[in-house]
Structure formats: C-alpha cells, structure tokens
C-alpha cells in the first residue's frame, strides 16, 4: 500500500485542489520551476506506470504552447527578430515557456490525481456531500452490470429460439426493440424484489446514516491542518504581491525578500509532500526489513 493514497479521500481531494489552484495563481518562475520538478518526481514515485508515453505527450504540449505565445503575442520590449512584419520578443518567448511549463506541471498533477482518486474515493466524496446521492449512485452502479448481463442473456436466448436473424436489418431492429421492452419489464418486475429487500431492512423509516470504509484518522487531521497553514500563508503572500513577477513589458527581477523565500519553501514542501511521504515510507520499511532479517530467529 502506498503511504500517500491511504489518506482520507477528502483530505487528498483538498490537497490536489489547493495545489492546483495555488499553482495556477502563482506565475512566478521559481514557483513554476518547483511545480515542474515536483510534478516530475511525483510522477516517478506515484504514477510510474506508462509515464514514458505521458512525458512525450507533455513535451509535445510544452513545445506547442511555448511556440504559440510569441507568434500571437507581441508584447515586450526586447525584440529578438521580426517575422512577417511582426516582432518576436524575448518576453513573449519566456512567457510562453513559463505557460508551457505550468501546463505540463498541472497535467502531471492531474495524472497523479486520477491514479490516486479511484472511483470509490470520488463516490465517497460525493456521498459525504449527500447520503441520498451516495445511495443512489451505489444502487446505479449495482444495477448497470446486472441489467447488461440480463440483456446479453436475453439476446442469446432469443437467438437460440431462432427469432433473431442477422441477415435482415429490419428483423434485427425489431428484435432489439423487443429485447429492450422485455428488459424494461424485467427491470420493473425485479425492482419489486429489490424494493422489498430494502423495506425489509428498514429503508424509509427516517433519517439514515451513511457508512463508509474510509475513516478520518488523526494523521488526516494533521495533514489537513498543515495544508491549511501552508496554503493560507502562501495565499496571503501571493495576495500581498510578495512573489509578484511581471513578464511584460519588461521582465521584473525575481523576488528574494525573506517573505518571498518563505513562500518558495512552503510551496516547495507542499508540492513535494507526496514524494516525501513515499520516501519516508520506503526508508521506514527498509529499516524494518533489516531489523526483521537481523532478528535472532533467523
């Protein structure tokens, strides 16, 4: 089991949401670089499967975005060369590179998100918003495969009864419609059994609780608190222009006040959290393993 994905889904969701939002607002080159590096490392540690093809795809997006900006945007004072009577400026090129990098970093983040947030976890999040919705979704996911299987069975039976010809398109359509109508009847009739089974177990007797296998542990609370402090500080620093960086008309210098450095460090820690978590777990296991191997029993 991986360490990071065993956190409560809500905490994980909040983590991905905060990191994505902050990354999108911080257009500072240092922070973009941090986002790229941590995205790269996280991909390698958490979502290694098939990452080669993904990196090629990301590189393609990067090239397209960085190349597109200077073609369409002619802001900036440092003209590199003139193309079709349009000046291509250094500022526009760098803006494009920054944009491309940021998009790549966010793509990586999204990919890790989909790897970690499985269907179950997303359902749990939606369910915690509304228990009714949770049950509805759960029942739907139960019914779809059931319905599908019955439809396949019905089609096969009808085929073996010789009522299903493949030579004649009209016959085929007629039969498909017939099967659909049979399936509707089947769904309604068998739904009665399900309804009985539900009321027999007290459904509809009043307020329900919503149970889930995911627990909210102490470590989840700790992570959530850390996230809140980090994100709050970073957001405050961004809002107060401590890490302000402008590309146009001329690039400003990279902020390196103590406040800016605090912001970089906190952001870096936040982005690297999954990787650090993973490393910590690996080291812990290695240590435990060596203890087990070195035990007197062996």
């Amino acid at each position, binding site marked *: 089991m991986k360490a990071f994905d065993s956190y409560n889904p809500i905490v994980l969701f909040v983590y991905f949401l905060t990191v994505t939002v902050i990354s999108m607002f911080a257009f500072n080159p240092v922070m973009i670089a941090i986002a790229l590096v941590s995205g790269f490392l996280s991909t390698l540690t958490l979502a290694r499967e098939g990452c080669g093809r993904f990196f090629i795809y990301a590189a393609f997006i990067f090239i397209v975005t960085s190349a597109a900006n200077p073609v369409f945007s002619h802001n900036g004072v440092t003209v590199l060369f003139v193309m079709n009577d349009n000046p291509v400026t250094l500022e526009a090129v760098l803006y494009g590179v920054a944009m491309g990098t940021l998009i790549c970093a966010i793509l990586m983040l999204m990919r890790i998100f989909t790897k970690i947030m499985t269907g179950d976890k997303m359902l749990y999040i939606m369910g915690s918003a509304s228990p009714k919705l949770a049950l509805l979704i759960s029942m739907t996911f139960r019914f779809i495969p059931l319905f599908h299987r019955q439809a396949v069975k019905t089609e*096969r039976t*009808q085929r073996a*009864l010789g009522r299903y010809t493949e*030579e004649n398109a009209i016959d085929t359509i007629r039969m498909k419609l017939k099967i659909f109508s049979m399936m509707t009847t089947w769904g309604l009739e068998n739904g009665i059994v399900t309804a009985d089974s539900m009321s*027999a*177990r*007290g*459904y509809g*007797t009043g307020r329900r609780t919503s149970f889930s296998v995911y627990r909210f542990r102490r470590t989840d609370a700790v992570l959530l608190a850390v996230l809140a402090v980090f994100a709050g500080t970073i957001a405050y620093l961004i809002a107060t222009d401590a890490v302000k960086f402008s590309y146009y008309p001329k690039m400003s210098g990279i902020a390196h006040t103590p406040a800016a450095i605090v912001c970089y460090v906190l952001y870096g820690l936040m982005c690297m959290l999954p990787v650090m978590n993973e490393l910590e777990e690996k080291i812990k296991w290695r240590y435990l393993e060596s203890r087990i191997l070195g035990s007197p029993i062996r």
Partner: protein
Amino acid sequence: MEILRVEDLRFAYQISPDKQALDGVSFALERGDLLCVCGATGGGKSTLLKMLKRELTPLGKKSGRVLIGGKSPEEMSEHESAATVGYVMQRPEQQIVTDKVWHELAFGLENLAVPQKEIRRRVSEIAGYFGIESWFEMSTDELSGGQKQLLNLAAVMVMQPEILVLDEPTAQLDPIAASNFIATVVKLNRELALTVVIVEHRLEDIIPVSDKLLVLEDGKVVSFGDTRDCVGRLIGNERLLRSMPAAVRIYAATHDISKNTFPVKDTDEVKQGAPRTDTDMGKNSRLPLDVCEGRSYIENNFGNAIRSESVTDAEAPEGEYALEFKEVYLRYTKDGSDVLRGMDLRVRKGEIFCILGGNGAGKSTAVSAAAGLIRPYSGQIKVFGKKIKDYRGQELYRNCVAMLPQDVQTVFTEDSIDGRHPYDLSGGEQQLAALKIVLETEPRLLILDEPTKGIDVYAAEQMGKKLRELADSGVTVVIVTHDVEFAARLADRCALLFNGEITSCDRAKAFFSGNYFYTTAANRMTRGFYDGVVTSEDAVRLCRLNADKQTVR
C-alpha cells in the same frame, strides 16, 4: 421462552378475496427452534412468511394474530420491526441493493441511523463470522450465486434479528452452495439460539436438521410438531410424501412389512437376543430422516440375500447421432484458459441424455456451443450428422435445435400467457410455460439448461413427464443439470463433465451406481448392501423382495 405465536391466522389476497390463502393457521415456536415449513406450491407457505414481516405483508383481508416476542408486528416501531425479523428471499441477485459488499452489509444499519462507529464494529464482526473478509471490498456483481445469498443472509444478520425468515433461499443455488448455505443457517441457529423459519423446495438437507415441521396444504395446517413425529403423521399421504427425503419415502413404503413381519433388530436387541415387539418401540423413534439413519433402517430390517433386481436393461438405443462433439476446445478470450478441453460426446436420436457436473465444469458452455451460440476454436460439433457451421441462417433453429435457458425469464417476449403475466406464475409454471414457447419451433433436438432449478418436486415430476413424452415421440433431449435425483429418474444415459471434458458416460443406472459422491441419496443408503439401486423405488422393491424371501424361509 416463546418467541413466535400465530393464532388462527386467516388471510385472503385483495385480488382474490374469495380464496383463503391462509385458513386458520396456528402454531407457536420457542426461542432457538428451527422450523421448516413445507407443502406444495400455492399452499400458502410464502404468504405465511410474509405475515411475519410487516413491511412485506401484502394487501388483503387478515384476521387472527401474530405475536413476536409477545408483540404484534403492528405494535412495533418501524425500526424495531425492521430489525426484529430478518427476511431472505429466493433470488440472490435482486435482493442486493448496493454495489459494494461492505456497503450491502452496512445498508440495514444505515437505515436505522446507527452511528458510524457502531456500524463499523458490527459490519466487521459479521464479516468475520461469515468468512466474508476476503471479498469484503469486492463489487457485489463479481460474486457467485452462493456468495450473493450468503451476503444477503449476512446483511440481514448484521441487524441482529430475533427471528430469521427464509423463503426458499437455496432454490437458485447449486447443490454445493445450497448445502453450504443451509450449514450456515444451522450454525446460526445452534450457536446464537436464533429462531429460524424456513421454506424449502428440496427437503433432503433441511428436514434432518430442523426441530419442528409445519405442513401446509391449501392454507391449512396439515401437521405441526417435532420433525420426526410430524413426518410420521404424513405416512399415508402420498402427495406430501413425495417431497420428503429418500429415507422417509423408503420407510413409508416398507414400514408395514418391517414392523409387522420382523422385530426390529436394534443393536441392543441383538446383544440381548430378545426380539422386541412393536408396542414397546416409540412409534416414530426409528423413522429415518437422513442417509445415515436410512441406511441403518434398511440394514437392520431387511436382509440382502437378493442384492439386485434381475431386470434386464433395455438394449442401448442404436441408430444415428443427434448431437456429436468431437475433440471440442473452447475458450472465451484469447488469453483465457480453455473452458472445454477436448470434449467428446455422442447423443443418439430419441434418447434423454443428462450432463452432470459441478460449477464451472463447462456445462452451460457446452450447451451454448451445442445450440450454436458460441463457436469452438478447435474440434467440431455436429447436429444430426451435419456440422453446425454448415447450417445456413435460421436453418439450425427451424424444426431442428431449441434451447431452454437457465433463466426462463429471458424467453418471455409477450406480457401475457393465458391471461397472466409470466412473472406472476410460480417457478414451476414459468418453466413449463417457457418450455411450451421453446417447443413452438417443433425441434428435433431439445437442449435444457438446469430445467429443475427453483421448482418443487411436483413441478419437476411434471417437467419429467413432459420430457419423457417428447422423447417417446422421437425428440432427442439433452439436459444439463445439478439435480441428481431428477437425472436418475429420467435419463437414459448420463455423463459427467469435469474440467471441460467428459470423464464418464454410461447408462443412468450404471452411471449412478458407479459414482460415490455424485449420486442419489437412495444409492448412498444402499451402497455395498444392494447393487444397482438408484431411486428410492428401486430400494423399496429390493427391500420387499428380501422381506418376502425371509417370510418364505
């Protein structure tokens, strides 16, 4: 302590107010009793069970009283009523509400607004008790039929009911899963002193373990009491006896000669050398219920001077083959494993051929292949001497092959059969109605997949009769089944399908006499004592022959 009391219960459904579905039913159960309710379909068994659960009580006119722990269901609060009586129905699939096993277990507790922490405790406890841990996180859709029904039971038990009501819970299960389910119910009953009320079609397994028996006929109680006494009172009632275990049927057909002609040789008596007379025997104390008791009854009451009947087997039918499998290999996916591995099979025209085998042996696959629904990747299948591949268009399904599938609900295209919706018919009626539809194409080869699943003994008999008529009129019948007793009664020849190939194939009598586990109760009862006994009628005839011989001597 008395847990359940039913007093003069009468009920008529709203749709047929003139017919009393229950007509003055009275009985009482102590805590920890296991009650088996039996009787023919339409006798009021299911109606009675529904009266015990307020949420499921149908519309109609009701009189009399039901008291559960001294309270009538109407007096209970909604939560109390939902939790007090646990109810499991016939169809495992449709009772499951949610997509995950853990969620299904929690569902009932969620409805009662039990706090998260308590749910967690109870769910983990019940999963441990039922051995569900290994599939706890799985989707309910991935489970086998047996697992689904166990899950339904667990999902009800998690609410800690006082009474467990089971309406034909094993009807849709294969024999292994069915006996596993019954074993779990018995375990709950014995370990938790749980009161159980169960309705079953197949009584072979449940009668020996039940404490009490309630026999219903046309809504009236025919007999109620301790199982052995109650079964004893049924002797003479041919119709009800037919659904009883083989041991009971053999006893019923032979007790007159065993009791009157010979003193019973109990082991004690043999030692003392003093034959015991009939009067000081407890009247029904030696009524055998299971295979073990049945065997001891036969061995102690009848000699085996005549070990087998001198019946000449009818000659093996000669002639052409209706269905041939030659080295058939079949798999569903390219990388999957073979489901059929070199299956060889030859079915002659006009015979009834049964293919038996466990779950996953490839039975359903074999019949689907025979019906041309799936194609083998190697080997060939011939129908009436012509390769299936060579049948063009609908040729194979016109006046040639027809198949009755396991799920007969997939057959009904019309919403009305003789004025009734097919879903309103009983299991047995549905089977016969579906068979009628399947026969419309006047097939010469009829293939049936588990035709006796979920139907009672009487419907199975009717089905058997119908199939025999068809075979006599020249139709070849191939049946795939788990139902050993049905196959033993009906089949001309039987084959065992194991691991994708036919491992044995013989005339029915020889087939079942040769098997050790996969055989009828009557055969297991007489193995090594008599030869060639397959049905309880065979056993009865041999007992009588031996009895006659001893009298003459």
